[in-house]
């Protein structure tokens, strides 16, 4: 693949994402078609906000659909970027945010936040981040105790920490008031964007933008990192430092995404794969394409979640139902792409 071709593919993906965002704005119980959208926009830009404020079309678009759509795109991007980053850092194409215990830790944090923080969304984010980071730190520490630099120990330690976090989460659910608190925790963690408003979006936006920028800055070194830590060190990469920075920023993103949307599985594993397959391994293209493709795919799935049945289906059910078989298909057919 030549350089220009990859860049062109990224632009096409970006355009597809924009198109999907527009289409998604027209999907839902409240009927809106494309001409309504054009009308609203022309009123807005022609006559200002007063002209559309009282229009119910505007309320649906601006207060309900748009923040939800943008939050979905951000969560999808965040999970894919962190998955892509983890895969290079651990030189393992089967690694995802779930592997390091981040998802489980952040989920536990969300449950703690919902139970003990009087419902303030900011606290939920904060506790999710703290427990998520603690989970990664524990994973890292355990793997250092067990095997030092060996990546396999990190993956195994992640499984240990995930189990621990999930057990604690089950304990919290067991102890929670079955009428008052339990349904809230369960539905929150199953994932969904029904509650997503501008607040969620504005909390996520800086987290994703900053993390994406940091990781993009390190893209060249991350390329080299995938050759293995020893080889990267021999090429002058400060491996410990890079590893730490990338893990921290990836974890922040996963924690924020989990706090915003619950545990959305599979996206962080499957999207980096697809994007590596289409755009190649080079981070310059691989990272932006993962972000775009992650947003695109999750938005597609969220549209399914809110239209397939009368009641909304939790997003993690959809991502797993589509993601798992798709990954199985990749495993069987794409042995060549470097992950055997």
């Amino acid at each position, binding site marked *: 693949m030549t350089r220009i071709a990859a860049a062109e593919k990224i632009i096409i993906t970006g355009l597809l994402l924009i198109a999907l965002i527009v289409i998604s704005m027209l999907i839902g119980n409240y009927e809106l078609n494309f001409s309504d959208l054009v009308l609203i926009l022309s009123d807005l830009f022609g006559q200002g906000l007063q002209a559309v404020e009282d229009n119910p079309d505007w309320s649906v678009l601006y207060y309900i659909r748009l923040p939800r759509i943008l939050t979905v795109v951000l969560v999808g991007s965040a999970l894919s970027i962190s998955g892509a980053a983890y895969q290079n850092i651990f030189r393992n194409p089967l690694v995802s945010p779930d592997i390091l215990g981040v998802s489980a830790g952040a989920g536990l944090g969300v449950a703690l936040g919902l139970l003990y923080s009087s419902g303030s969304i900011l606290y939920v984010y904060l506790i999710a981040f703290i427990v998520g980071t603690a989970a990664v730190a524990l994973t890292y520490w355990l793997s250092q105790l067990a095997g030092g630099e060996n990546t396999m120990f990190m993956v195994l330690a992640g499984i240990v920490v995930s189990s621990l976090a999930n057990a604690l989460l089950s304990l919290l659910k067991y102890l929670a008031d079955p009428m008052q608190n339990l349904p809230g925790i369960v539905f929150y963690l199953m994932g969904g964007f029904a509650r997503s408003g501008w607040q969620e979006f504005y909390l996520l936006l800086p987290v994703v933008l900053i993390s994406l920028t940091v990781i993009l800055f390190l893209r060249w070194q991350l390329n080299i990192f995938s050759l293995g830590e020893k080889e990267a060190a021999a090429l002058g*990469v400060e491996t410990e430092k890079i590893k730490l920075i990338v893990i921290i920023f990836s974890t922040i993103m996963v924690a924020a995404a989990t706090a915003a949307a619950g545990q959305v599985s599979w996206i962080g594993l499957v999207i980096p794969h697809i994007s590596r397959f289409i755009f190649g391994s080079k981070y310059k293209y691989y990272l932006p394409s993962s972000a775009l493709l992650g947003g695109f795919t999750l938005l597609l799935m969220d549209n399914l979640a809110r239209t397939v049945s009368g009641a909304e289906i939790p997003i993690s059910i959809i991502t797993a139902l589509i993601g798992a078989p798709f990954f199985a298909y990749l495993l069987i057919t794409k042995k060549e792409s470097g992950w055997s």
Partner: protein
Amino acid sequence: MLESKNLSFSYTDQKVLNNIDFRAEEGEFISILGANGSGKTTFFQCMQGLLTPDAGKILLDGENINRMYKKEIARKIAIVPQENKNIFDYQVLDMVLMGINPWLSFAEQPGAEAYKRAEEILAELEILNLKHKSFNKISGGERQLVLIARAVMQKSSILFLDEPNSHLDFKNTHLILKIMRELSTVQKTVITALHDPNLAYQYSDRVIILKTGKIIAAGPVEEVMTAKNLSRAYEIEINKEGPIFSLTFQKSRLLKQEA
């Protein structure tokens, strides 16, 4: 210039290197010989600053290598690993470009000049036609050449090769060693671990023989590479006929039983 003084290293309870004094001068081609498990790889990793010795010091241009930044070391030492496929595939040109990394600042990307140089190096090694090929899909010999190109890109004065011919055929083995030999004549120091004494004999200026973590012989090829020294290193009788070393095994017990 790279040297070790009283270098010792052990993994938990096993001493792998014992009191090694070593010195590599500019423009030398040095081969390290020794049986499997004699400590060659550990010695290499210590000398490259990847492992910290238990005792003794490693000096790179007079500076303690374990106190240097990885980038500083990488500007002076390049490592040509054994060729192997990557987990994530890259183009040949990108693999070569990675060699410029020690000369880039923290978040810098390689610029147009680096691209140009990478292509020049590929052309010099006569593999420019591979530049857009996928690294995982070219042959083992070609991959090894690409890794050498990357090391040249690094502009370092010392080159390490750990058994460079382990996956290579007869022609490629000699091609790689010939190129390394040529590099050593342009003020680069080449240090290589080799399994085959005949290759070491043919290409090196100086040979060091390791046995159970100690140097048992070191010096110019003609002095050190005697049948006696090699017999001691590999614990089997080795003969020298002309410039060729050979050995004879007794018939294995399996065959004796069959008879």
